């Protein structure tokens, strides 16, 4: 591979492309091209110095490695630079407005990072004797107490690793409860507007998934739901506030109806951030709800994860929740209920969902966030999140079609459709136009119930000035989409890459790097 051009494409010298004169290196000042470690590293290079290994007779049986693995190494300077340059090709909440609906991209306080890195938490092993990890168990327990009180529920399962894992936890608890009472059922009802993880989870647990129809208002059709309930229905999975950004007014009635029909109510709590401190889901009769700590409680999403999805449970479902969990004793000591003690302390548990005790590193961050806000601050969080979303809804509804604008105030996110754009222009073009304007686009094409959906979630950590500038930019981009501006169709123009060919990527997938053929390498 040529050292002159390490980025797999050959910039043409001289020709002034539409984004300014090309350069010899392909770099554009602070926008730097970067090659793959396989192109710049060698298996003989390392960025780590080690003590010499003691000479011993190996105990590896006949399996000692002889063949090379093929792992390139980089010196530390090259490593730091490689990843720093890569990082600069990312958008992030630290850079600007990131109104990705449903994903709740709010500020991630650095205090939480500092706390999670304290040796006492970062450097303890999950299987140390409990006497040596009382502080760690205290964190889990304190967070559990907060979650129970904030939701008004009976118990909480802390181990689920993310929201979808939490959904599974809830559905398994429902299934276990039904089986315990000798009444296995086969169907879970899920609204069309639900996040994909809902039906996927229900199906994974062996349930048939049926849609719940919605009203023209964008809410669950209570009558239709009641009509469908029956002895085969294990339960419902309802997102509240729902993915159209609306509060399910009839939630309590839905719960009562489902319970009356012998089913259970799972609530997708991904949008809990809209109501935390103002509404306790427990008061709405739900049986299980996951909480994405990486959404409502601001643990950083890290470009894909990790998350954490504790599940609060009703009194009816608590006995079936997973192990392990912490117990606080009268004398202030903490212990763990795990395999050993489960039979005695938690006999109906459906079992273990993961090795060890869940996402400790997220627990410390979330608890730090919660304690920082306190009961008063969390209530303010919900209010400001909802205020910001309604401000956006009302400031854009004259230029963008807002299908549920008449359904009452929105909660934490505002939903728009692509109706009224010029022929051949779509939600995608608006998203790419926003990229050039210095924003991360909203969530697009979700929920599925709205054509060309644009789901805008500002969160409470954005200032009015930021919202005003965004609204101005959005209006400008929408006008261009209505006017059919070709420059918009070809956006983004200023990002590290222009639009990427996803079809080619899927047609013949290249998922790992392979040495280029000589021919290719030569050119």
């Amino acid at each position, binding site marked *: 591979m040529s050292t002159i051009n390490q980025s797999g494409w050959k910039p043409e010298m001289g020709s002034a492309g539409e984004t300014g004169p090309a350069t010899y290196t392909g770099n554009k000042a602070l926008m730097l091209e970067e090659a793959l470690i396989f192109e710049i590293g060698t298996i003989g290079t390392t960025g780590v110095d080690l003590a010499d290994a003691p000479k011993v007779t190996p*105990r590896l049986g006949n399996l000692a490695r002889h063949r090379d693995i093929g792992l390139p190494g980089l010196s530390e300077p090259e490593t730091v630079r490689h990843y720093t340059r890569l990082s600069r*090709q*990312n*958008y992030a909440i630290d850079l600007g407005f990131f109104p990705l609906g449903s994903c709740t991209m709010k500020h991630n306080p650095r205090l939480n990072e500092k706390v999670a890195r304290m040796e006492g938490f970062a450097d303890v092993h999950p299987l140390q004797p409990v006497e040596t990890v009382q502080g760690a168990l205290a964190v889990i327990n304190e967070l559990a107490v907060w979650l129970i009180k904030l939701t008004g529920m009976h118990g909480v399962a802390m181990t689920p690793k993310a929201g979808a894992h939490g959904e599974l936890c809830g559905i398994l608890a429902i299934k276990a409860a039904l089986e315990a009472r000798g009444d296995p059922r086969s169907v879970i009802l899920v609204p069309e507007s639900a996040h994909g993880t809902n039906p996927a989870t229900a199906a994974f647990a062996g349930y048939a998934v049926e849609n719940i129809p919605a009203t023209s208002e964008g809410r669950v059709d209570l009558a239709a739901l009641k009509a469908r309930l029956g002895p085969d229905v294990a339960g419902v999975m309802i997102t509240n506030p729902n993915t159209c950004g609306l509060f399910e007014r009839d939630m309590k009635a839905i719960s009562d109806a489902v319970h009356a029909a012998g089913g259970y109510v799972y609530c997708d709590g991904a949008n809990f951030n809209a109501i935390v401190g103002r509404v306790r889901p427990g008061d709405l009769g739900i049986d299980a709800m996951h909480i994405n700590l990486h959404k409502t409680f601001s643990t950083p999403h890290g470009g894909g994860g990790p998350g954490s999805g504790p599940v609060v449970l009703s009194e009816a479902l608590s006995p079936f929740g997973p192990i392990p969990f912490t117990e606080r004793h009268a004398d202030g000591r903490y212990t763990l209920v795990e395999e050993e003690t489960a039979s005695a302390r938690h006999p109906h548990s459906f079992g273990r969902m993961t090795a060890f005790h869940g996402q*400790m590193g997220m627990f410390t961050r979330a608890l730090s966030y919660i304690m920082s806000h306190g009961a008063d601050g969390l209530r303010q969080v919900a209010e400001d999140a909802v205020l910001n979303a309604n401000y956006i809804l009302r400031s854009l509804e004259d230029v963008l079609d807002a299908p549920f604008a008449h359904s009452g105030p929105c909660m934490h996110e505002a939903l728009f459709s692509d109706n009224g754009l010029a022929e051949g222009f779509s939600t995608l073009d608006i998203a790419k136009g926003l*990229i050039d304007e210095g924003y991360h686009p909203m969530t697009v094409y979700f929920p599925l119930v709205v054509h060309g959906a644009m789901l805008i979630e500002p969160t409470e950590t954005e200032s009015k000035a930021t919202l005003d500038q965004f609204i101005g930019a959005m209006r400008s981009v929408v006008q261009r989409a209505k006017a059919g501006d070709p420059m918009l169709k070809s956006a983004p123009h200023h990002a590290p890459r*222009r639009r990427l060919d996803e079809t080619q990527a899927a047609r013949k997938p290249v*998922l790992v790097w392979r040495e280029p053929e000589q021919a290719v390498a030569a050119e």
Partner: protein
Amino acid sequence: MRYLPLTPSDRQAMLGVIGAKSIDDLFADVPAEARLDGPIHGLPNHASEMAVERHFSNLARQNMTASHTPFFLGAGAYKHHVPASVDHIIQRGEFLTAYTPYQPEIAQGTLHMLFEFQTQVARLFGCDVANASMYDGSTACWEAIGMAGRITKRTKAVLSSGLHPHYVSVAKTMAQYTGDTLDTALPELSPGTDSARLLDAIDGETSCVVVQYPDILGRIEDVSAIAAKAHEHGALLIAVVTEPVALGAIKAPGEMDADIVVGEGQSLGVGLQFGGPYVGLFACKEEFVRQMPGRLCGETVDAEGKRGFVLTLSTREQHIRREKATSNICTNSGLCALAFSIHLTLLGEKGLRGLAELNHGLAVQAADRLSQIAGVELVNDTFFNEFTLKLPKEARPVVRALADRKVLGGVSLGRLYPDVDALANGLLVAVTEVATMEDVETFAAALQEVLA
């Protein structure tokens, strides 16, 4: 409140634009009986950063940390020295505070890194392809069993007795509801594994055989024969690796024809963190790629023909396929995957080999030293950086007694297999580069004392 930018006057102005009298108007859809009229009782109000930091540092100081005590725990979570540059990089806001790369033009940093990560994992495991990470090793393991079921259209999985008991429990939890049947067994305190049992169990109903390499007791065995027998019967071999550093010293499962190789990536870059977040590694043969769970990053070009990366083959995933998806996973363990990838890039082939050699050398010395203690027997013939000791008495109280002497002396099998008498005297001891010979001597002295 320091995290909330809106000022009271902003709020008033915005309510005006919205045409609402008060914030309560915006919650009008909440039924009256469910509305809370003020902060929830019995919970404290907001606190200063200093107060919160103090609360946590007081709790943190109640824990005995691995770096300030002779430390020998493993059993699926290992302490390795992580270079400072790893943590520096993962704290870059552009990595830390980004979401899943849904808009590839402004997520090339994450996508480029994932493409490198997938390649590193595939090579390390000796497989064709790898995905962009799972939650952890235990969930990756049951996702692999589920994947084998989809591929073979069979439901019987045969699990080695050497598989981590937590991984077995997780699989059992899932099997209860997915209708899979699991053929499991308990390990024995012997140098050999139960591969004979596995070979016998493989038949026309078998979807897969699951082996751990090295296994829970630290034993290392060639799995080629199991692969061959499995393939004969149209079944798959799933190999589980809980200590990836081992692969710097021993053959990769893929080289022994495993079809799916999953693992726990915590050893590299991530750290102990009391059990999470960790990172699940998931690799397989190319032919099975469309049955894989989780995200995949692929190479493509942009409108100007420049190389770029995108998430691809999403038709496997929940957001497209919904109830027909290969898994319900959405958020995975991206940032831990980054940490893993950075650490492995720093090490490179040379560093990983050296690190593995160092771990093995120290472990061999420690095993020999500890088994000199009267009544203490080394169970393993083969091991990498972790081995099993048979003590003259129950191991669990011994571990507690060692902790009282400020030695974190391994994991008792009693903790992992509570009610199994045959295993009660077993002690798992892991020895990595962080253990000094003085640590080993301190451990030996304390153990001698406790056993006396």
